[in-house]
């Protein structure tokens, strides 16, 4: 088969799997698991084949136009360069792991068939985004991901948190998607085509009339999808979905799409200095703010969610200084270790029967209950904190190295101000990242108190994928940073000495300070009992998780916060702890700015409709109704009365006719 055929099959197979799964889910439950896992695995193999054939050489381009659509043509086009090939392999790997993990995690879930089909559809949409060479086809995948995330985040729709979170995720990303659509149209109008190759060609020859406007419009959509400030608020709440879905959304699909989109169209953004500065500021605020918030979260998955936002901030930061190689490098390594973190967190939540770190810190021997999750999560947290030689170190140093490069003025395509912003925020975030990674590890695995509840052995499907993902988390960075430049733009991705020493030193400092704070506070933990645990030794992990999410607010008073004085994050953050736990009250600000005015407008419209419009309608109906009441009184039911009236009418008519005929 040609590379093009293989590449077409990659997004097509999960799509067909999703369609078959939705159709057969009820009638043939035995086929659901194979239909979920096999197409995704096959497309992973095919994506790897495509990557091997493409090999970082010239991009594979293929296009076919189904039908003429008017002014700017829309074509089914493929554009596979080194970025697309490698990101597709990552998507396939993470999606396969998630599908295998889900067979164990949602073992007894009655809605598993539709869940698995939606995960397949999600995967196929992301692969479409990755491979697409036409912006409108890319947009199709982009929007399909939006609706899939809505359904999957709302998987536990019995709980109000999940319902609210799914709606929020959908609406907030759509808020970005509307400007994104307008930006795409503006871009196509300026460039004369939706094809990525032609758009890039037009940019290279300076054919864009409004680069800043277009870049900012597109940036809004990217901020929504990739959860960048100020549209990031949906991501922490999306933790109300099942853990495998969180892993899928956070590691490979959805949030990666925004970063990947900028990486594809980076010359468009580089055409506008203002857009690059905005991107840098956005990345910096996102990084630092989310790392602070992550340090204060009580829900283990919300810690990881804020960490995702922060790591995406690193990627957008790398893009802001004009190096998409570093951004996609971090995207790849982050995809591996973040998927691992989430899947391991799912195992831990199942074993502990709670998603609260405060409750876990009062549990003895949790790590002996889940040795696989303990070891793999340790690897992933080290990668997250960018400790050498784990993969996160190399990719993060690539980002910081590029920023340093820009600061020292070695490049002309990115403003030095952007370099400074990204470098300072990146180093600050490195401290905080190490701090919250350390805090998570200490609270989850070094707890003391009552024995952890026994949920039996974890299913093999759930533990094997952890080790599969641990390999790239451990080794990807070290092996890849020499090879990847051949696939990407050819720029060196190796760590530079200054930033490596600085970044690693700061990360170690953050970890040690957190450890010290934990030593200081952990004595308090025994004195203050806290924690609610839901134990279902017979049930599957999803049931435990759904209950843990639903009981967090009743048990601790808030979805993200627990009144735990033994939390090292509280000591480290001081007065910042409470606002950081609430995401710096950004949701409250949005409620005051947008939700309340909209609700007030809605109640005004309701008032106008109920009280004003309906009054007119009722008034118009009053006269006929009154007449009807009067006429209805003649309807006595006595036939003789009717006949009498008939006779009287006949006589009157006859007399009238006679009078007219005689001319009187």
């Amino acid at each position: 088969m040609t590379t093009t055929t293989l590449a077409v099959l990659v997004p097509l197979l999960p799509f067909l799997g999703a369609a078959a799964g939705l159709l057969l889910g009820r009638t043939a439950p035995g086929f659901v698991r194979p239909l979920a896992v096999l197409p995704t695995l096959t497309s992973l193999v095919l994506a790897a084949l495509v990557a091997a054939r493409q090999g970082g050489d010239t991009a594979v381009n293929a296009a076919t136009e189904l039908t003429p659509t008017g002014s700017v043509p829309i074509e089914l086009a493929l554009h596979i360069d080194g970025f697309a090939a490698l990101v597709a392999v990552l998507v396939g790997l993470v999606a396969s792991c998630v599908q295998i993990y889900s067979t164990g995690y949602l073992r007894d879930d009655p809605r598993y068939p539709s869940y698995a089909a939606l995960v397949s559809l999600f995967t196929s949409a992301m692969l479409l985004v990755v491979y697409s060479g036409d912006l409108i086809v890319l947009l199709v995948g982009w929007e399909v991901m939006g609706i899939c995330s809505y359904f999957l985040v709302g998987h536990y729709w019995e709980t109000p948190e999940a319902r609210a979170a799914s709606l929020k995720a959908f609406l907030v990303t759509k808020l970005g998607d509307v400007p994104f659509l307008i930006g795409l149209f503006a871009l196509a109008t300026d460039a004369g085509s939706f094809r990525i190759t032609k758009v890039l060609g037009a940019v290279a020859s300076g054919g864009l009339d409004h680069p800043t406007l277009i870049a900012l419009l597109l940036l809004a959509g990217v901020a929504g999808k990739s959860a960048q400030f100020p549209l990031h608020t949906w991501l922490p709440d999306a933790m109300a979905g099942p853990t495998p879905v969180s892993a899928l959304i956070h590691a490979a699909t959805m949030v990666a799409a925004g970063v990947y989109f900028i990486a594809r169209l980076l010359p468009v953004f580089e055409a506008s200095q203002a857009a690059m500065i905005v991107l840098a500021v956005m990345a910096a605020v996102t990084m630092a703010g989310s790392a602070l918030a992550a340090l204060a979260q009580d829900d283990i998955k919300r810690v990881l969610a804020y960490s995702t936002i922060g790591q995406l901030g690193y990627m957008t930061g790398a893009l802001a200084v004009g190096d998409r190689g570093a951004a996609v490098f971090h995207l790849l390594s982050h995809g591996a270790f973040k998927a691992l973190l989430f899947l391991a967190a799912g195992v831990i939540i199942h074993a502990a029967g709670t998603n609260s770190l405060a409750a876990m810190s009062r549990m003895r021997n949790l790590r002996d209950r889940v040795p696989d999750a303990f070891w793999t999560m340790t690897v992933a947290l080290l990668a997250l904190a960018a400790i050498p030689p784990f993969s996160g170190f190399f990719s993060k140093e690539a980002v910081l190295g590029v920023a340093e490069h820009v600061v020292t003025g070695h490049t002309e395509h990115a403003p030095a101000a952007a370099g400074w912003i990204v470098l300072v925020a990146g180093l600050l975030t490195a401290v905080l990242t190490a701090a919250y990674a350390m805090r998570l590890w200490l609270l989850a695995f070094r707890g003391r108190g009552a024995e952890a509840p026994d949920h039996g052995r974890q299913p093999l499907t759930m533990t094997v994928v952890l080790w599969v993902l641990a390999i790239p988390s451990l080794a990807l960075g070290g092996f890849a940073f020499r090879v990847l430049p051949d696939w990407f733009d050819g720029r060196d991705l190796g760590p530079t000495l200054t930033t490596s020493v600085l970044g690693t030193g700061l990360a170690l400092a953050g970890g040690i300070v957190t450890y010290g704070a934990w030593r200081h506070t952990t004595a308090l933990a025994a004195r203050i009992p806290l924690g609610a645990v839901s134990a279902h030794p017979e049930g599957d992990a999803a049931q435990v998780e759904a209950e843990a999410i639903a009981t967090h607010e009743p048990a601790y008073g808030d979805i993200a916060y627990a009144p735990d004085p033994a939390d090292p994050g509280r000591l480290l953050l001081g007065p910042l702890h409470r606002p950081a736990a609430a995401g710096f009250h950004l949701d409250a600000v949005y409620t005051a700015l947008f939700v309340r005015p909209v609700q007030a407008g809605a109640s005004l419209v309701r008032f106008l409709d109920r009280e004003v419009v309906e009054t007119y309608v009722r008034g118009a109906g009053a006269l006929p109704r009154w007449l009807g009441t009067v006429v209805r009184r003649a309807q006595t039911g006595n036939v003789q009365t009717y006949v009498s009236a008939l006779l009287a009418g006949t006589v009157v008519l006859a007399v009238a006719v006679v009078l007219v005929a005689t001319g009187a």
Partner: protein
Amino acid sequence: MHLAYPAVLSALLFCTGLYGVLARRNAILVLMSVELMLNAVNLNLVAFDVWLSKAAEETLHSGQALTLFTIAIAAAEIGIGLAIVLAVHRNRGTADIDKLRDTSERHDPDGPDSDARTAEQPGEAQKAEATA
């Protein structure tokens, strides 16, 4: 015979029938009165047919033919009418027209809004369907 005699007779018969239809209470008597009215018309038809055919050179006696139709239809009508009256009497125990007022408009306290009320209370409408 002068045309005035049958005409006057039929007018008297018709008025008697009309009075019966409008004023009698017993359904069978009402039916009989209807027969009287029909026969008054028949009489008119025959009388005028004879009167007209005197003047005409040739005639089809359409008046008399129409009379035959009327008699046939009247026979059918009285048959059905008596059957209905019989059925009503068996059901209700009476053939009094004044008491057979099922088609009258019920006097609800809030008559004008009865439609809106049934729309707002689907339970009531379902109950009505179930009994129907």
